[in-house]
């Protein structure tokens, strides 16, 4: 405990943030949060002024995903708070630790439909891990401390703290209580039972055709190394969810890459033929499983998952190891047998051959620009070391397929909610978390325009990132579905965009354009050499589709395959 001193609630807010190690917050001021903004000037915390509160939430999210720490955003009451909602839901679905601070009208006015009053704790109830309404200065410190603790512990998630104007203005004695937070009903930790660990090890040792699944929980637990040990010890291939990419190196010989709806056909086929699935920190999302009736019917299943509510939810598993993935692997890895599984790996290799994998690099120039080429060239030019933040849609899948991630926390994308407009602001947050990283935004022409106003934030903050707009003139993924499943009727998917080069220049940034494959290297080099953020408008093939594809609800092995060898995966 530190000395007892009088402070306003607004000051206490920043006192707590400083003590929680917060260095940067993303926000937008307004009436009900003005006392907090006034007090902020006295504290060593950088504030990034966003152009829309949704951007603030995505920036805090991107910061958290890149750093593993709690991201913080600030908004005023009413519209400020409701503008955060999409960003909070995004963080909730992907289990991202975040604290969202909102101003609220004075406690006496609550319930009166006062100016800019919204019941934001009510609105965010289903999309936060927990939330607080603070009506007294005395409660600011304890509730904020709890918020940080709840956000980061167990399965992480966003926590909203709504602070009334009078709670910010009121004064009270500030005592910093640095004892661990204790909440009587909150039990974030779980430990798998020893007998279940033993059953898992027995299944693992006996399996002839096992596949390990790597999910976002592996990233959150920092368990990549342990996963690698398990895989190498048992000669077991590893498939990844979208959010798990990078925690097992894509260049590793046992890496299968992404599975599911847009996973490679041979990867999904391997899952369907497996006799054991070892799922680590993932939740068998419908994008991963396809039709549950026919999903991996030959396989026993082991599920290592921190959240007991995820176990036996989508897929029936044989052994559930409820606990931190890292802790669980620390028990499993030493007990598992070292063995080879040559026949199984050979079988997988043969399926890979049958999928007619071509190196897109070896294809002759055809005068056209494919998004796959752009992704692949970006991967080569950045030597696979960039921190890539992708948006949602076709380009997101192409990024996942063609940019090979070898490191965790270097692919940031909205997986669960699939939030268009996420990438640009999330990349700003990521850049603040990792200022030395080369940050690339990969975004479609549709998603880019949802939050393009944050280019202004980039210019004001003077940060340098790179923005690759994969511009095909359509809302591409919806257009693809219309082509496949709606008789080719392009309802509301053709999209006219502004001149992105001029848009960048209007913000005082650099605008560049690529229309042919041969220009990629030169233009990317120019973007990297520029001291300012560059926006590159990649004018790609308009009606290209993401392959392979498991249609929604179809069997995992029943994929729509690539018709065009030009966009086959490189795997040489």
């Amino acid at each position, binding site marked *: 405990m530190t000395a007892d001193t009088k402070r306003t609630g607004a000051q206490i807010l920043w006192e707590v943030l400083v003590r929680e190690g917060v260095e940067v917050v993303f926000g937008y001021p307004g009436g009900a949060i003005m006392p907090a903004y006034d007090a902020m000037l006295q504290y060593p915390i950088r504030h990034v002024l966003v152009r829309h509160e949704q951007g603030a939430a995505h920036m805090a999210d991107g910061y958290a995903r890149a750093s593993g720490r709690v991201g913080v955003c600030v908004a005023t009451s009413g519209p400020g708070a409701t503008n955060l909602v999409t960003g909070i839901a995004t963080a909730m679905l992907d289990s991202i630790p975040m604290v969202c601070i909102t101003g609220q009208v004075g406690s006496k006015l609550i319930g009166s439909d006062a100016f800019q009053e919204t019941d934001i704790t009510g609105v965010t*109830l*289903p999309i936060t891990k927990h939330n607080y*309404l603070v009506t007294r200065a005395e409660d600011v410190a304890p509730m904020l401390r709890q918020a940080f603790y709840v956000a980061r512990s167990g399965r992480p998630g966003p926590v909203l703290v709504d602070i009334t104007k009078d709670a910010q203005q009121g004064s009270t004695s500030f005592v910093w209580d640095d004892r661990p937070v204790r909440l*009587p*009903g909150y039990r974030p930790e779980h430990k798998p039972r020893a007998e279940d660990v033993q059953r898992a090890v027995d299944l693992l040792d006996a399996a002839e055709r096992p596949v390990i699944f790597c999910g976002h929980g592996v990233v959150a637990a920092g368990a990549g190394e342990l996963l690698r040990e398990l895989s190498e010890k048992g000669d077991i291939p590893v498939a990844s969810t979208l959010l798990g990419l990078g925690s097992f190196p894509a260049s590793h010989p046992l890496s299968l890459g992404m599975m599911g709806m847009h996973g490679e056909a041979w990867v999904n086929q391997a899952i369907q033929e497996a006799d054991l699935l070892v799922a680590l920190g993932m939740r068998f999302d419908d994008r991963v499983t396809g039709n549950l009736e026919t999903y991996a019917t030959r396989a026993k299943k082991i599920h290592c998952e921190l*959240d*007991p*509510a995820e176990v*036996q939810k989508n897929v029936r598993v044989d052994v559930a190891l409820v606990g931190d993935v890292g802790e669980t692997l620390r028990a499993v890895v030493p007990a598992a047998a070292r063995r080879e599984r040559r026949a199984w790996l050979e079988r997988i290799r043969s399926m890979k051959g049958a999928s007619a994998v071509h190196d897109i690099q070896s294809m002759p120039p055809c005068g056209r620009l494919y998004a796959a080429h752009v992704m692949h060239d970006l991967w080569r030019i950045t030597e696979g070391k960039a921190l890539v933040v992708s948006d949602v849609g076709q380009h997101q899948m192409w990024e996942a397929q063609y940019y090979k991630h070898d490191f965790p926390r270097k692919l940031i994308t909205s997986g669960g909610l699939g939030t268009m407009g996420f990438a640009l602001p999330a990349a700003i947050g990521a850049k603040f978390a990792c200022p030395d990283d080369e940050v690339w935004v990969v975004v479609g022409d549709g998603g880019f325009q949802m939050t393009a106003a944050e280019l202004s934030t980039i210019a004001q903050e003077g940060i340098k990132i790179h923005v690759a707009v994969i511009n095909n003139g359509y809302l591409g993924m919806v257009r693809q579905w219309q082509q496949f499943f709606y008789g080719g009727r392009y309802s509301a998917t053709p999209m006219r965009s502004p001149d992105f080069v001029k848009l960048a220049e209007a913000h005082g940034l650099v605008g560049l354009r690529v229309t042919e494959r041969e220009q990629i290297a030169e233009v990317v080099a120019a973007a990297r050499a520029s001291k300012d953020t560059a926006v590159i408008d990649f004018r790609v093939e308009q009606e290209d589709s993401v392959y392979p594809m498991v249609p929604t609800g179809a069997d995992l092995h029943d994929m729509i395959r690539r018709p065009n060898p030009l966009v086959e995966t490189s795997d040489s």
Partner: protein
Amino acid sequence: MSAPSYRTFIAYVEDLPGVLNRITSLLRRRNYNIVSLTVGRTERVGTSRMTIVVEADEDAARRIEANLYKLVNVLWVEDTSPAATLVRELALVKVKAAGVARGEVMRLCDVFRARVVDVGPEALVAEITGTADKIDGLVDVLRPFGVLELVRTGAVAMLRSAEATGADRAPGPTTPDDVKAA
């Protein structure tokens, strides 16, 4: 997976504003149908107790319990289905009972061990405590006379075992009333 049936959960929760909302919001959001939900104070200071009846199969029941535990304000949850449990509900039934019908209605109330708590010239009010089935039974036999109004509390549940006590489920002292009564 087992067939869906009514499952009765007991939950101890912190007695704070909005906690009931968190519970109902969770059940609604996860698409579980609440059959009944009752809330009241307990013998522990600052702790409320809920009895929640939900339609669920075995797996769903386990997930409901796990999801309830994820709420920060939930102290303790138990699915009572596997244990010997007392479940009671209270109902008030206002039924037409004029002239000769009155004697008949009162006899039926007697059979069901319902108490007649108010009698007027046209109608009477019966109070009945019991399981949902027993209350359904009374209402069924009174219906031909004309049920004018019916109110039911929803179920409250308690495990029979002396080993199941509030002290294991929630922190804090018992209420002053209980201390006096003891």
